[in-house]
């Protein structure tokens, strides 16, 4: 990623509410699950943007909105001058050629009655490409080869493949049309540990070769750190922090990001001696989210203001954006994260200046 990269997708105030209905014949709406509630971010050309968060934070809904598998309640998603949220007919079909998705579960996302060959050639049939039978087969087999599948298995069915290979089929189907934007919704969380790295490396290589822009959605912070240039952290339908990876992981500013990272187990008995900050309780229901800052019910730094004023997503001195009244200070971060992560931040003059100013303001208000 470079600072000069232009946005490929601009997401503004994206909202998706799922109605909760009651009644048998005359259904009336009695509420709404606010799955995505006012999310704005850019996806830069050629980058990998990560979206992380716990179950129910709206990350998968965001993915589905980006490919228009769901219709947003309001807001816009502008891709090359076209609003995905409002596209229809021919322009929507054209968008689906350029924006593709890989799903989480490689078992339920492939039709068990179709052969691998016909699953991967479907995009070509829909978009009228490679119309000749032989030509199409050749193209599909090239694609299979590219993602590490044996082209001779063209006529096999999905059940004949292992989980990792099925995910490769999903990847082949998604890149068949040479999209510009690829959304990967938890692509490795259903796979065994030794297979995960194979699929992650495949995605990285494809991105390098094809110049893909990738939106990578996952709940595993270590995987996201490995894959992504920038990361958006979501909590209950909102983006609470959006920052370049290096910055986010060495110096998370939002207390929620800090807590998430503190909870990640590190496979090193000696290095895990840090003061784990454990969040109490569970994520509140998105049907009835807390007022103002949604994290205030679980936040260790919450004050009066957090339940009345919703903090805007803004810069706290460095390149990242944080939606918090009382961002973490460098000292707090050092206590909670593995030392290897925070070492970079400690040496960076940008952070020390910003942290000293914010720590003084935070300490005056929190004591």
């Amino acid at each position, binding site marked *: 990623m470079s600072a000069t990269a232009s946005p490929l997708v601009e997401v503004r105030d994206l909202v998706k509410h799922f109605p909760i209905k009651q009644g048998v014949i005359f259904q009336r709406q009695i509420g709404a699950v606010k799955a995505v509630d006012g999310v704005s971010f850019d996806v830069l050309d050629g980058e990998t943007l990560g979206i992380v968060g716990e179950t129910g934070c709206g990350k998968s809904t965001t993915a589905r909105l980006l490919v228009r598998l769901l219709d947003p309640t309001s807001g816009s998603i502008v891709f090359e001058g076209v609003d995905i949220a409002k596209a229809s007919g021919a322009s929507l079909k054209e968008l689906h050629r350029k924006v593709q998705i890989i799903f989480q579960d490689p078992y339920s996302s492939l039709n068990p009655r179709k052969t691998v060959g016909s699953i991967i050639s479907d995009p070509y049939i829909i978009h009228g490409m490679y119309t000749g039978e032989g030509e199409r087969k050749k193209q599909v087999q090239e694609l299979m080869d590219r993602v590490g599948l044996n082209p001779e298995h063209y006529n096999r069915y999905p059940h004949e493949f292992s989980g990792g290979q099925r995910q490769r089929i999903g990847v082949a189907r998604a890149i068949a049309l040479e999209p510009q934007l690829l959304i990967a919704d938890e692509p490795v969380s259903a796979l*065994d540990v030794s297979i995960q790295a*194979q699929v992650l490396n495949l995605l990285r290589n494809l991105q390098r070769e094809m110049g893909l822009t990738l939106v990578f959605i996952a709940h595993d912070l270590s995987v996201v750190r490995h894959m992504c240039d920038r990361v958006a952290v979501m909590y209950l339908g909102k983006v609470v922090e959006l920052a370049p990876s290096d910055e986010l*992981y060495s110096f998370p500013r939002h207390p929620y990001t800090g807590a998430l990272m503190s909870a990640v187990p590190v496979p090193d008995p000696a290095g895990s001696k840090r003061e784990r900050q454990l969040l109490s309780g569970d994520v509140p229901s998105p049907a009835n989210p807390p007022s103002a800052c949604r994290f205030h019910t679980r936040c260790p730094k919450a004050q009066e203001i957090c339940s009345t004023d919703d903090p805007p997503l803004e810069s706290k001195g460095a390149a990242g954006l944080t939606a918090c009244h009382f961002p973490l200070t460098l000292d707090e971060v050092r206590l909670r994260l593995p030392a290897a992560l925070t070492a970079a931040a400690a040496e960076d003059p940008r952070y020390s200046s910003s942290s000293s100013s914010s720590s003084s303001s935070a300490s005056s208000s929190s004591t």
Partner: protein
Amino acid sequence: MSANGGPLLEVSDLHVEFPTEDGVVHAVDGISYAVQRGQTLCIVGESGSGKTVSSLTTLGLTQTQGAQVSGSITFEGRDLLKLSTNEMRSIRGGPISMIFQDPLSSLHPFYKVGAQLIEAIQAHQKVSKGAARDRAVELLALVKIPDPQRRVDQYPHEFSGGMRQRVMIAMALSNDPKLLIADEPTTALDVTVQAQIMSLLAELQQRLGMAIILITHDLGVVAEIADIIAVMYAGRIVEHAPAEQIFGAPQHPYTWGLLKSIPRLDTPRGEELVPISGRPPSLIRRPGGCFFHPRCPYARESHTRIDPKREPVPGDPGHEVACLLEPDLRARIWKRLVAGESPDVLRRELAAASTAPLVTTEPAPGTPGAEP
């Protein structure tokens, strides 16, 4: 080691086989381990490595499925495999209890949480329903469920995932077990909830002094709680050592693969992941010799024939490994893997230096022909 001698649980040469239409599935193939009182043993492995089957067998839960079991499982001096169904029933949920991966499917949806806890208590203790209920509330408080008096009368669907797992833990603790088997207790949970549950387990262990067998695929979870780690592959324990040794000086190429194929928060970003090529073998038609040889970058021709025995690592007490590579060679390879060198480079060097030809391993992912 406890005052009254021997280990709490000792499994020796346990075999579990399931006859199927396609052939015999060798789910567990001659594993041995021991758990001392108050100790935490972690069994690490991928799906299909036999880690769950071995612990289900400890509780006598596989025998009903037509499994053929041999070997011995000694718990407090008694061989569990020789006990009758009734005797086994008094052990299961009593001195040995278990929590499962998916708390939603482990709780009955039609019964209140309290009723299920009371049932578990009354199955093992002759107490009145009222006393059992008091104990149920006490247990819910023990696992830190807020407002236990009210929650005891709620149904499982009214609990979140983390809270349900707490209920499962409460149920497992209801008869003061000496051994708690936890099978992937946090896999279905979010990281923040996972951290809560793991710290709860560690705290309860300190307070109640029980031994824990933790089964997981996540080496990160293991690092914080384990005393001893057993790494399983294709039904066998390939490496067995104190936790620090597994992370500090791992000996088996499979353990190296596990450690190098996961991205970690405490290593530099951008460090390449080293996947283990291929996939786990079929447990019906297993490869000859060392089961890991088709995926091992360093396997020699002889490794396809010779079956490695679990042997002590010289100069490293308590560390055992089943690997045919020479100990000093293993130490050299791990040192260079830590330095960030790729297994491919090491493999080429090894091939050039040795007189014995290396086995052609399964093609690396990304190349055609990596199919079964």
